[in-house]
């Protein structure tokens, strides 16, 4: 089984559209959507949810009002400004600011602070026309996206082993932070979907540094490749410097949007230049991974 993570650094370059197209080409495969705070892959894969699980990602403090003596120790020790005081309501915890460190609960002299496991989201095991999908929904403004990503990846790997799947496709989040690192550590290969814009190039360099840092081999797909010729050339050069292979170029084409609006992967929607380019990228990737 090969685990391939699709990321981009910059958002909106076409990660999820490419993942969905790869899913169509790799079927039957296992898919996992690691963009847990703005998951979109299910909008194309239309999964039938088979199991729903709660995600307990951490603990949060809660003031036990009857025991609170309003001494203010909790507010003094909190480094995240998560405990506020006003005359009318006394001390109150702002759950959106609380980072679950438990320092307030430990130092409360009146045992007026509960410190409890909190449900930070849900994750799902589903079936789709291309194979099983593991996906999740992080609670709004919740902590611990990295933990949730690690959890659903673990589930997806177990599923891939049980199904003797050849491919595990991971749709990653944008950026280079916690959930991205959690998505790619220990994977077989990273595919970076980028675009020939100054921002795409800037973010690509940071992502390539990240994949090198975690020793995951990376290759590149240049989407919207004809938007800016010079930019595409610069990407190819950057790829070369970082020893990353360019799998192919996808033309700038509204067909991605059209396919998305009807809930299909671009491979199913049309067999034009975009689909052909993605097929070529997938074939190239398969060849490279067999060599590895």
């Amino acid at each position: 089984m090969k685990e391939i993570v699709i990321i981009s650094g910059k958002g909106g370059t076409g990660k999820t559209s490419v993942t969905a197209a790869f899913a169509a080409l790799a079927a039957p495969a296992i898919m996992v959507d690691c963009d847990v705070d703005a998951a979109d892959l299910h909008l194309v894969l239309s999964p039938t949810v088979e199991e729903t699980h709660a995600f307990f990602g951490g603990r949060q403090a809660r003031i036990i009002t009857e025991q609170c003596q309003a001494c203010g120790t909790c507010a003094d020790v909190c480094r995240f400004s998560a405990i506020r005081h006003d005359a009318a309501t006394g001390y109150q915890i702002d759950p959106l600011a609380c980072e679950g460190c438990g320092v307030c609960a430990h130092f409360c002299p009146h045992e007026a602070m509960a410190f409890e496991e909190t449900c930070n989201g849900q994750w799902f095991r589903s079936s789709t026309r291309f194979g099983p999908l593991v996906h999740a929904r992080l609670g709004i403004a919740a902590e611990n996206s990295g933990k949730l990503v690690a959890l659903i990846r673990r589930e997806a790997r177990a599923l891939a082993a049980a199904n003797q799947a050849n491919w595990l496709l991971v749709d990653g989040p944008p950026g280079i932070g916690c959930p991205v690192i959690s998505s790619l550590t220990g994977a077989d290969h990273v595919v970076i979907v980028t675009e020939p814009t100054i921002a795409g190039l800037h973010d690509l360099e940071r992502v390539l540094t990240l994949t090198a840092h975690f020793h995951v081999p990376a290759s590149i797909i240049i989407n919207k490749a004809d938007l800016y010729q010079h930019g595409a050339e610069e990407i190819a050069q950057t790829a070369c410097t970082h020893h990353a292979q360019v799998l192919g170029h996808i033309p700038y084409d509204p067909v991605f949007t059209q396919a998305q609006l009807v809930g299909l992967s671009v491979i199913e929607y049309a067999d034009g230049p975009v689909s052909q380019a993605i097929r070529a990228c997938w074939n190239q990737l398969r060849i490279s991974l067999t060599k590895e």
Partner: protein
Amino acid sequence: MQIAIASGKGGTGKTTVATNLARVLSGTRPVQYVDCDVEEPNGHLFLQPQITSSQSAGILVPVLDLDRCTRCGACSQLCQYHAIANLGTTMLVFPELCHGCGGCIRVCPEQAIREEERPIGVVEYGTARGVHFLHGRLNVGETMSPPLIRAVLKAVDPTIMAIIDAPPGTSCPVLTAVRGADFVLMVTEPTAFGLHDLMLAVEMVRALQLPTGIVINRADMGDDRVERYCATEGLPILGRVPHDRRVAEAYARGVLAVDAVPEMAVSVQPLADAIFQEVAL
């Protein structure tokens, strides 16, 4: 006044809106552009500021004095992030797991722990043709962006207007970036992904009880699902930006839309006026 530009989905045009808005507003008043997308900051590519100063930002992490430490383990028991391990004969600190809560120092009965700042990125200041420029840049390989975002926001001058370019998503980084704002402008696109992530982002700003308005970018590239959603939810649509290949090409080269396409300058001012009107309500 602080106006945050957010989106849920990445790549909808947050930075395009934020940088162009800052440029246009700077014609009539002092304005700061504040890039809080510290994982992938891009605003500097378009505003091309002259960076005048730079300062390191970090998290306070524990440093143990092993001569004083009795291996009692109070610190490692308190730590929720598994950043200190008690191995019996010695203690191990994992600074990259530390959130900087300071609990270990407080709980240590031997005063064997002090704090040291572990750098996670830089905050840079500059000016860009009259726009005050400020951004954070997370070191590659760092997992935690909120402490850096807080450092960037601390450097904002509260006496002049700030346009805050937020990171994508709906979790801690974007929350940290927008929570102090007076208004959150959401940039979306009329597609399935755009709408879905907009709905999540709207839930987030509602949880923060912040006023919000919508800009639909590439308004003619999808369908009317975002319009219908906004109507049902009573969300004001403050602007619709049609797709324009010239704007996309200018963006690709790092040129501001208002500089490349003259009509754009004319359409940004009404957006600014609409935001001010919403804030005044």
